[in-house]
């Protein structure tokens, strides 16, 4: 017994040593990413929390104002509530439509027809295109005098729409462009989801007499629920952070019609020199996104089923 213990101890030490070496190697592989995350993400995020309690123009020494920035933001700043409403309008306009359209597109391209890969690449092109180029292109498309969209509308007897110069139409214009730009990304995710559904399920359903609609409703939709949940969460987060497309297309105008929360953060920080106030807006936006994400997380238990 004693000799058995004596012989097992070196083996145990050896196993521990190997495990330790493996752990060190593992952490060393992780180190560049972790350091990058800590220095370039965590640190700035924590810093903005501290900055949000300051009155700081980046030029002179900051002064501590505790929660004054938050109080002013939530209680007296009409612009903030206006841009928040605009942002919610954008989110509601883009997310559901984008999900439905990308699912339809993914199903249409989940076939074996000739040239399907080229079609997938074409639909994905806007995703990897420069936001500036896309916005400039859409400025031309939206031109009320000679834009293609108004040309088509007037061609079928509809009135021309002042897309970018009307407070009513400017946000729909941004929403349409954003859906077009991001459709390909969601489509690829859905395509991956669709290809993960076993064909045997459809075959079994067909044998049982299920039609295409019934298969779609009872097989495709439920089995795509995790994919839909992922797209929903990511799309909502991205939509609340809308900036580049709206900034380039309309600069937030006309009036404040397409001004968004992130645009307001940018203005407060770099146009008005109110870095503390801008940081406070950023944290309020974070809180809103976090709250919505938590609600979705809770809600997913009712409709998302993992195999």
């Amino acid at each position, binding site marked *: 017994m004693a000799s058995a213990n004596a012989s097992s101890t070196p083996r145990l*030490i050896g196993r*521990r040593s190997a*495990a*330790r070496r493996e*752990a*060190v190697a593992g*952490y060393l592989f992780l180190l560049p990413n*972790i*350091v990058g995350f*800590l*220095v370039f993400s*965590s*640190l700035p995020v*924590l*810093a903005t929390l*501290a900055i949000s309690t300051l*009155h700081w*123009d*980046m*030029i*002179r020494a900051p002064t501590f104002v505790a929660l004054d920035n938050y109080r002013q933001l939530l209680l007296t700043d009409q612009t903030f509530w206006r841009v928040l409403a605009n942002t919610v309008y954008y989110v509601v306009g883009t997310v559901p439509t984008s999900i439905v359209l990308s699912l339809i597109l993914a199903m249409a391209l989940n076939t074996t027809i000739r040239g399907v890969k080229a079609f997938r690449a074409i639909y994905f092109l806007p995703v990897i295109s420069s936001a500036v180029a896309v916005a*400039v292109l859409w*400025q*031309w498309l939206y*031109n*009320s*005098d*000679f834009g293609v969209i108004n040309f088509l509308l007037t061609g079928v007897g509809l009135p021309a729409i*002042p897309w*970018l*110069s*009307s*407070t009513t139409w400017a946000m729909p214009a941004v929403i349409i462009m954003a859906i077009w730009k991001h459709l390909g990304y969601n489509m690829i995710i859905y395509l991956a989801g669709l290809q993960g559904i076993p064909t045997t399920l459809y075959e079994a359903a067909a044998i049982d007499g299920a039609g295409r609609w019934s298969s779609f409703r009872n097989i495709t939709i439920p089995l795509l629920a995790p994919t839909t949940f992922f797209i929903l969460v990511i799309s909502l987060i991205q939509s609340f952070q809308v900036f580049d497309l709206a900034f380039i297309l309309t600069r*937030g*105008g*006309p*009036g*404040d019609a397409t001004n968004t929360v992130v645009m307001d953060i940018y*203005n407060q920080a*770099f*146009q*008005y*020199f109110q870095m503390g106030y801008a940081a406070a807006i950023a944290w309020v936006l974070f809180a809103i996104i976090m709250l919505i994400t938590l609600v979705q997380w809770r809600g997913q238990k009712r409709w998302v089923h993992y195999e």
Partner: protein
Amino acid sequence: MSNHRITRRSALGAFGALTLGALVAACSQSPPAAAPTAASSGQSAAPASTQPAASTSAPAATSVPAAAASSQGATKKFRYLYNATPGVDEQVHLDLIALYNKLYPDVQVEKIRVPNDAEIVRKLLAMLASHDLPDLFWNRQRTAPPFIDRGVLLDLSPLIAADKMDIKDFWPSAIQTYGRNGKLYGLPNSASSNAHYYNLDLFAAAGLPDLKDTVKAGNWNWDTLRETATKLTKGSGPTKQFGFNQVSSIYSVDMYIWQNGGTLWDDQITTSHLTDPADVEGIRWLVDNVVKYKISPTTQDTQSGTDLFAGGRVAIMMAGRYELPNLAKLAKFKVGMVVSPNGPKANTTRGDDLASSILQDAPNRDNAWNFAKMWSSDDGQKIVLASRRSFTARRSFAQSDAMKQNLLDWEDLAAYTDGLERTKAYRAPAQTGEVNTVFDRELSLMYSGEKPAEDGTAKMKQDIDVALKKPL
């Protein structure tokens, strides 16, 4: 042998400590920049002055300062922040640096280039926040106020006095723009001249006389501008021809307010005057050109991505020499120019004077000051003119052969100098970003026909007054 296992907890603890250390390091103040020595500081070498050195009689830097020797003992470098896009746009800065290197071969110039003037503000903010200062930056009317009012810039008056420069040689608007309470925070180096350019081919096609005749007859005013522009407006859709350009931004609309006898705000810049009848009428005149008379392009027309004047679709344009590169590249017509029209109450014009500003805590002030002087000197002004996009900052140089030789055959020196003598400085508030946002927002609503001038200016006043009362 100790048996330490690296657990996730211990690893995260170590990273946490690392983060905390980095946070503390990042938040700690870096030591202040080394102050220039008394011997090397031009400021300390001259007596402090409460007035700009207007009383000195020597001409402004008419020649490059004989300061190569004076750079001995100074720091051997300086950092220059400017905005330009690579290529032709940047050439003027590269040429200035080359001239400086020739004059001060022992001083190294560190170039810090950003693409535009909005970016220069952001870059400067970041550099100030990180105590990583440039010594000198290319300043302009619209970027100057926040930095002047926050005490970031060096008062150049003592340096000007020590070098016996005559600041009266600079255009008055430049001194007003960079002056505060007898101090001067920028040495002017170029002027964005203001005039009205017009397409002579469109005038001929419409059977209209040259605008120079209108000026000579003493009839060049708002009424004749609108009347002429109406005759020059024709067509519709993408090829519509407009008589007069859309006047956008507070930096151009201000001229119409001044010419109508109005002012933007009170002397202390604490309350706007935008609902005064003179202001409302001035803005309404511009809005009517777009909405009522349709002789100026809509905002959407201007968003088409092309220069409507250079492209031949706008007949008359309020512009300055900054437009010349576009005209050289695009215009296929004869161009004419006259001074800006007289308004109902005044003949004030607008301008945009640019200057060299030195940071209060710049570690290499002497070298920066030498660069600023060189830029405003005759040789520096020749480089400015060579870019063919700016006008000289100095009255005396405007009459030089170099200036006359630099003009294109259709350019009118008298129209430029007349305009510059009549230029009023735009007194930008310290809250300039917020004020501009409000102004542009409401102006865009008026130009799109969604708000009448009364409502737009009322909202402008309401929101701008709130901004003006915000503490710096």
